[in-house]
């Protein structure tokens, strides 16, 4: 049992962090808000040369062969700087879906070509899942992989009708997409399609959770800084319990959400068939800490906190947007209690990690029989 990340994993994260900290400042995010594309191609080129778009492809396809556990650290780093470009989505959602499709021998040579182009920075791809009514930066993509019913479709972007929608978060460029699910675009349907889409949903939930974690870090860091700098009654406002306890509560939830995201990444990576519970847990934990961080960050900043000028809004608006992407709170809570309260759920203490956690539910679980006695 080991919840730590390896030195290599942390080194790659640190390298990405260093680049992003330098290149993705509040000022430069605001510059994107004013631009037509909302996109920094210079940064994209730097990420490409770091290998970010090859990370999640196996070495046999010319990629770097990283896994979900590696990628959550990177997604967190992207959240930390409130990165506008959908790098995490390419890395954690589109790339593994392409790998799934190739592994299953679906599509034709075109998929392999798309993978090569993606790694070479020659094309971009976005993934649309029925759970999300809007797709971010669809117009910047060359290819869209879209779910519809239990079908997975691959279309060139000009085969899709795009309707732009404005987001409260000016960094996001949302689009409603419409297309005819013609057989010529269909990669998979039926059971195979449903399984692919279920995996996409769990990877999307995980990718969002990891970004929310980074966003919460961003907000808590800004708030700690401000509460230490701002003085009233002759001392920093952060010396007051009424202020510092707010941030302590965020810090607790942040630290405690980390291994939950790690656990989900591990499960998505190594036992994807069992990942629903772990991903929903991760999305809920990350949602909770990020929402709390956004609320308290504004409170701690006082009147400054709700100005356009203050950078709190950059991170807070992303939090509010991501909370309802890839399944809002109700969706994920339902997945958990529907599993937990079925008659044969394996809920005992030995089912968290151990061999028994892998066993098929059976009628002799016996939990209720052994505990009912103790109420007497």
């Amino acid at each position, binding site marked *: *049992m*080991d*919840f*730590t*990340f390896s030195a290599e994993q*942390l080194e790659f994260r640190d390298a990405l962090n260093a680049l992003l900290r330098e290149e993705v400042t509040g000022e430069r995010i605001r510059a994107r808000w004013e631009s037509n594309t909302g996109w920094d191609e210079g940064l994209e080129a730097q990420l490409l040369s770091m290998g970010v778009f090859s990370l999640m492809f196996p070495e046999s396809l010319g990629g770097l062969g990283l896994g979900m*556990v590696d990628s959550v650290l990177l997604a967190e780093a992207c959240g930390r700087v409130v990165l506008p470009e959908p790098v995490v989505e390419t890395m954690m959602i589109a790339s593994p879906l392409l790998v799934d499709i190739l592994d299953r021998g679906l599509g034709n040579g075109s998929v392999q070509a798309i993978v090569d182009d993606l790694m070479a920075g020659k094309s971009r791809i976005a993934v649309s899942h029925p759970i999300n009514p809007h797709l971010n930066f669809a117009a910047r993509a060359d290819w869209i992989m879209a779910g519809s019913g239990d079908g997975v479709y691959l279309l060139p972007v000009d085969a899709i009708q795009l309707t732009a929608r404005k987001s409260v978060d000016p960094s996001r460029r949302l689009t409603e997409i419409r297309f005819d699910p013609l057989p010529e675009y269909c990669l998979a349907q039926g059971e195979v399609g449903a399984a692919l889409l279920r995996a996409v949903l769990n990877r999307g939930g995980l990718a969002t959770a990891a970004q929310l974690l980074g966003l919460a870090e961003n907000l*808590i860091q800004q708030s*700690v800084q401000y*509460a*230490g700098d701002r003085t009233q009654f002759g*001392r*920093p406002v*952060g*010396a*007051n*319990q009424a202020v*510092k*306890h707010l*941030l*302590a*509560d965020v*810090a*607790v939830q942040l*630290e*405690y*959400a*980390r*291994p*939950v995201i*790690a*656990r989900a990444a*591990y*499960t998505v990576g190594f036992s994807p068939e069992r990942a629903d519970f772990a991903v929903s*847990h991760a999305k*809920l*934990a990350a949602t909770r800490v990020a929402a709390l961080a956004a609320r308290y960050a504004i409170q701690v900043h006082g009147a400054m906190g709700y100005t356009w000028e203050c950078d709190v809004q950059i991170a807070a608006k992303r939090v509010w947007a991501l909370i309802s992407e890839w399944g809002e709170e109700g969706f994920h*809570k339902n997945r*958990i*209690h529907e599993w*937990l*309260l079925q*008659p044969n759920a394996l*809920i*005992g*203490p*030995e089912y*968290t*990690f*151990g*061999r028994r956690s892998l066993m098929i539910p059976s009628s002799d679980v016996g*939990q*209720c029989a*052994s*505990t*009912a*006695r*103790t*109420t*007497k």
Partner: protein
Amino acid sequence: MLLEFSQEDERFRDEVATWLTEHLIGQFADIRGRGGPGDEHHFVRERKAWERCLAEGGWTCLGWPEQWGGRSATIEQQVIFNEEYARAGGPGRLGHIGETLTGPTLLAFGSDDQKRRFLPGIRSGQAFWCQGYSEPSAGSDLSNIKTRAVWDAETALWRFYGQKVWTSLAHASDFIFVLARTDPKEKGHRGLSFFLLPLAQEGIDIRPIKQLTGTAEFNEVFFDGAACGADDMVGAPGDGWRVAMGLLDFERGVSTLGQQMLFQVELDEIICIARANGTARQPAVRQRIAEAHIGLRTLRYNSLRMLSGGEDGSLSREAVIYKLAWSNWHRNLGKLAMDVLGPDAELVEAGPYELNRLQSLFLFTRADTIYGGTNQIQRNLIAERALGMPREPRGDAAKE
């Protein structure tokens, strides 16, 4: 990252499960599932006998080094032991304070002589310990200790004068570790020393404190000339604060694993009741059960991450967080239990005021957010130590 058990670990699981199945029977059948939080005062004699049975089977002090009777068990094995212990309905561990607090503290800070004199009693399930920290004037401000230890040159003994309070299970214990002031000229955390005292002696008066549960796990412990030898001080004079804080780190380490297993048993019981009485069909209850379940998973993952060590698992940062996290979770669980029982939660079915397990759980968990450092104090520590925020201004009396 590796979030699985090895084949060898799973063989260990089978060994634990088999032993517990074979031994939690006969005279011990009645204490299965008893003695958890809010129920600690029950079956003390039987649970002490159980501790001796565990000890004979080699299941006490698993994490201790073999030299002192332990198995040098890995974290994984300790996790598995606690999981199987909870699953089997093992009773609340009376040996817990000795095994997870006194023992590791002596192994880290004690003399060889102290280890020889005190560790075997803990390992064999014969010697039970309690914790003498809080005092009437030293609650949240723990370093404001007034209990004095005075060196009596004539008898060559340390003599104790003062009072400890909120001492859990003192009435069922054989020994107490005491944080006392040995240098009356010093204030705060300086001038304190850490002692090991037998409770069965002149000059010690233990008085139970009746709680709102109607029971008395907590006690006041008065010292009026009670004594221990020079060789019963852990560390040097004035080292008391360092030793006492070192002990608290152990409290937040491996010892959390057993605690979480008791929580899991409580939660599973509540889930079973909710399924049986139909409250599990209410959306509001379902949501809270889901919250409770993932909340406990979160506590478990964090303890295991903390025990994994390494850069992102540093004990110092997370240790101060743990108390706030578990106490809030457990307090909410107590209320969930009552809401799942519905109107029946109010009924006292036995004795003059004999509460059932869940009623005790609910009332006892009102204390969780207070003892061992209140939530307010925990938040101060987190904000000031983990986040580096400005310190709370101190009153004049506390300024040094």
